[in-house]
């Protein structure tokens, strides 16, 4: 069952002024329930605008957005309900923290949903746990935490709303390697545990190929492709042509192919590369 469906969505910035610009151009796409979809694209390719359509922060200039089969801009839909269903975590989400304690900040979303005290408490603790925020941190001020911790608190703030769809805009941007790893692996664990549909926007191909089952490539406001990871990277030449990067290891394999050593065109993780190289060597073709 498709949980997200976009039909011919077009969005124009500052429509009707000299600054008019098309950010999203006639995008149609469906995302299945439980899918972990990576979204990549150049700066200004419209990915951030696209994801803001999914929880109704941005109203499309033309076209329709369906969440759970429901047109979110039809009159009888409360847009806030849509936002609880499709949780959106912005880039540099730690800038949204404002409460005195981490606990209170995480409970802001659930409180807005009008849940009971006990329900809020269980949700806050569960969200904190899945983001690796220890009990003692809950009573600290969010402004005293490290960058990586703040980011995880902000994520927990959305997760505590228990959305059906979790949309993350560059959740690991600007963090050090340890912080990156900790945020990304927790998102992946969360996905495995609860089967939530996840859309992950990232600049880093390495991150996307490690976690995503499907990849959505945006180019100049249009969908370049939306297919399983293997198929996307089989088109690596085209991807490089539209100015995107492929994982480092894919580049190495491409160079090898140019030198006459063909290991296959579906290699984008170091593990698979290792396997193939060993296979190749076992056949004794390297002197």
């Amino acid at each position: 069952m498709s949980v997200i469906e976009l039909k011919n969505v077009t969005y124009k910035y500052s429509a009707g002024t000299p600054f008019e610009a098309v950010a999203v151009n006639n995008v149609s796409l469906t995302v299945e329930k439980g899918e972990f979809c990576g979204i990549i694209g150049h700066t200004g390719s419209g990915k951030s605008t696209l994801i803001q359509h999914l929880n109704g922060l941005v109203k499309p200039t033309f076209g329709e957005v369906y969440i759970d089969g429901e047109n979110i801009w039809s009159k009888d839909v409360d847009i806030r309900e849509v936002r609880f269903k499709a949780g959106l975590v912005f880039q540099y989400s730690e800038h949204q923290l404002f409460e005195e304690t981490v606990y209170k900040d995480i409970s802001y979303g659930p409180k807005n949903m009008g849940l009971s005290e006990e329900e809020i408490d269980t949700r806050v603790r569960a969200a904190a746990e899945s983001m690796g925020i220890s009990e003692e941190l809950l009573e600290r001020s969010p402004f005293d935490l490290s960058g990586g911790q703040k980011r995880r608190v902000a994520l927990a703030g959305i997760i505590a709303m228990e959305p059906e769809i979790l949309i993350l805009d560059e959740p690991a941007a600007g963090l050090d390697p340890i912080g990156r790893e900790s945020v990304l692996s927790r998102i992946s664990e969360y996905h495995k545990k609860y089967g939530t549909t996840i859309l992950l926007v990232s600049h880093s191909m390495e991150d996307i190929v490690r976690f995503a089952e499907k990849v959505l490539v945006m180019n100049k406001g249009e969908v370049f492709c939306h297919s399983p990871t293997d198929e996307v990277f089989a088109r690596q030449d085209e991807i490089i042509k539209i100015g995107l990067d492929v994982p480092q290891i894919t580049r190495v394999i491409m160079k090898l192919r140019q030198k006459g050593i063909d290991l296959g065109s579906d290699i984008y993780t170091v593990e698979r590369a290792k396997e193939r190289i060993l296979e190749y060597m076992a056949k004794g073709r390297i002197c």
Partner: protein
Amino acid sequence: MLKDITIGQFFPGNSLIHRLDSRFKIIMDIAYVVMLFTASNYLGLIAVGLFMILLYIMSGVGLRLVLKSLRPIMPLIAITCILNLFFIRGSGEPLLNIGGVIMIYPEGITTSIFMAVRIMFLIIGMSLLTYTTSPIELTDAIERLLSPLKKLHFPVHELAMMMTIALRFIPTLIEETDKIMSAQKARGANLDTGGLIKKAKALIPVMIPLFVSAFKRANELALAMECRCYRGGEGRTRMKQLHSGLKDYIALAVMAVFFAELILLNIYIPYLGIPYMVP
């Protein structure tokens, strides 16, 4: 939304108005305001209006922007109109008399129209300065115009620097407010409905992150300035010097002639149906 605010916004261009020396533009802008308030009859007002329209045509700033800049002051205009309409007492019979409390005289109607047009012309005319002059040029000009006050130990340079920084950060902060508002809306914040107190409370999750980041920015900026050895105005040179040329003096002369004409107009056609006014 917030991005649509046009008052005080600069629209780059290369018209004659854009190229005039910003010091002269400020002086002429002040002269324009004085002129507008000297015009005491409709004829003078129309003359000032035509002058302004001519300047706008020369500058190439679109009509749409002009109308946009008027939107925020509409309530002010409405209040002025209503006050003048009800409180001006004319000499003849009132047009409308409800129990001797609400009385509308023909003079009230003419005055309120006059006032509304004057305020509109004021805003539109003053906007031309900021539409056609970059904030940096503007503060540079203010610094130069105020520089005689340095003799009185008035911190002119510091004031100009503060203005430059404030102007520079307005768009940044607007963008940031937009972002934080979106982020809190994504968490179910309800910023648009409810009473005044509820609305104010709903803004706390927006204001606190905004203040935090504004202080952080200020701190970083101060540090960056210090790293580049900023020491205040003493002995500081500029990358872009202000140059006044023939065109600036001609513009000033045109303005002076027009001003003189307006004063003559006032003397020869005094009070066109306007006995006295509530400014």
